[in-house]
């Protein structure tokens, strides 16, 4: 009897929590489909795709989304290449400084990147890099490196060395062995790191907001903010439609790597390096 009651109470609590988390989503989902949406989520029975077709223009959606893809994509590719190279000696060689190096990496993942934005901006301004997308991508990649190297090394440790030994005997250097043997075998790991970096940068608002000078260079994260900070004159239905279009890639990619990331949450308890 009490067992049943406890079970019921747990299910009811979970239902309440789930509904509470669902609440803030309601407006976006409803407003995007309502032709004359305002700020409150009001279930009317008029639905149309008018809002979506209204935002699907070059200026509102396509251009910012292309910017987002370019910025996040090049950051992800650059990070994966540089982190993959760096992970190789850390995974394969006995290095005296390895432990300290890995600990330093872990330490830097904790530093607030937000705080670095002021000096980064000031440096970019001094060296005429302000407004340069490639320079910003280099900065974003550098800030993603510590965690990515850490993850890459873990994935690389999972590839048995014995497979490489025969290649070494045949005279292959580390470049060949990394490209031909380790790389293909850890392809899922590479994809996870790339997607992880991509999704992180997809949502990044502060860095482009501060480091890019003109609206034409801004990714969707900043465009959507400018869109809804025009208080009073916002077409709320269109804002909701924009939000959904912009959020979808992040959700889809998360679902794709969800399985691999799940294991890394024991991360907080003990870290295998």
């Amino acid at each position, binding site marked *: 009897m009490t067992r049943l009651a406890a079970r019921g109470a747990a299910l009811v609590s979970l239902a309440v929590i789930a509904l509470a988390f669902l609440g803030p989503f309601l407006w976006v989902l409803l407003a995007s489909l309502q032709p004359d949406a305002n*700020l*409150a989520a009001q279930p009317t029975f008029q639905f149309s795709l008018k809002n979506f077709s209204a935002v699907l223009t070059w200026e509102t959606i396509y251009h910012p989304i292309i910017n987002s893809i370019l910025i996040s994509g090049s950051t992800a590719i650059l990070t994966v290449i*540089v982190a993959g*190279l*760096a992970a190789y000696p850390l995974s394969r060689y006995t290095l005296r400084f*390895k432990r300290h190096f890995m600990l330093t990496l*872990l330490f830097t993942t904790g530093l607030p990147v937000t705080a670095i934005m002021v000096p980064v901006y000031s440096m970019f301004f001094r060296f005429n890099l302000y407004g340069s997308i490639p320079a910003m991508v280099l900065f974003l990649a*550098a800030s993603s490196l510590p965690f990515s190297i850490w993850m890459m090394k873990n994935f690389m440790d999972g590839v048995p060395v014995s497979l490489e030994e025969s290649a070494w005997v045949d005279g292959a250097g580390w470049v060949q062995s990394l490209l031909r043997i380790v790389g293909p075998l850890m392809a899922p790991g590479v994809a996870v790191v790339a997607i992880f970096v991509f999704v992180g940068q997809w949502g990044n608002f502060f860095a482009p907001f501060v480091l890019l000078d003109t609206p034409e260079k801004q990714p969707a994260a900043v465009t959507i903010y400018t869109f809804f900070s025009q208080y009073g004159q916002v077409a709320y239905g269109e804002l909701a439609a924009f939000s959904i279009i912009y959020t979808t890639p992040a959700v889809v990619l998360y679902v794709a790597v969800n399985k691999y990331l799940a294991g890394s949450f024991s991360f*907080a308890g003990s870290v295998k390096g």
Partner: protein
Amino acid sequence: MTVTSVTPPRLAGSPDKGEPRRRARRTLRWLLPLGPALIMFVIFMVGPILWSVYIAFTNETLTGAASVNSQFVGVANFVKMFSDEDFRNSLLLTFVFVIGSAVIGQNTLGLIIALLQRGRGRAVRSVVNGIVIAAWVVPEVVAAACWYSFLAEEGTLNEALAALGLSQDWLYSAPMIAIILANVWRGTAFSMLVYSAALSDVPGELLEAAAVDGASTWRRLVHITLPLIRRSILSNLMLITLQTLASFGLIYALTGGGPGTDSQTTPLYMYEQAFRYFEIGYGSAMALVMLVIGAAFSLVYLRLIKVDT
């Protein structure tokens, strides 16, 4: 890390003559692949930190005379900071924000959800997980838009409360509560996932044995489960504190730090000083303070976890 570290076979040569060259070659073997990462890291991460140490002691601005040749002003920025009413206000708000949304909100709620989910069916777990994680995956600007529409004067909450006559502009009357709720909503998934992983390592027999001995649910939680996952609790607290300390986009898009300075946490105040008033030197001094606080938490985190390299 002992199993996988195998060095490539080395040919036995004369140790004296080839020694310097061999050592150089062995250094190159790790330096070459690590090089690009090191260079990028030094230029774009270490560089800005050192740069902030330098300009925090100058009167660097973006406009006016000091933008052309800034001067060394010693600790003036730091003296100014600690007598600055608005800065102290921002530190206090950051503290409230971290305690309210991370330490109490995300941490407790994440643990509760993880505990409630134990032993539930797969369907229940995936629905609850899915909804909570969805809030986490949504980009911060979209999360802000969701919460703005929920709390604004003509928003969903007021629409629902109108019948009771409790409508008000929540973003004006309770901005701190608004940003705390929004951040709890967005960040709880992380703690939930950490605790789900930790709880799956707690042996079920232990809890069953205690139940047979007549220990209540509460006593089992306090005396068995919590002590067993204490490391996860501590390191989760460190990680979410670090994430919350640096939170900018969510607050900026939701309240902009206002009304007035009522929800202006330190990152927002730093932004205002550096980018609206162009006080780069002063902003960098604040950045340094935030970096030091972040570094302290990060060090505690490193001490807490067991790292086996």
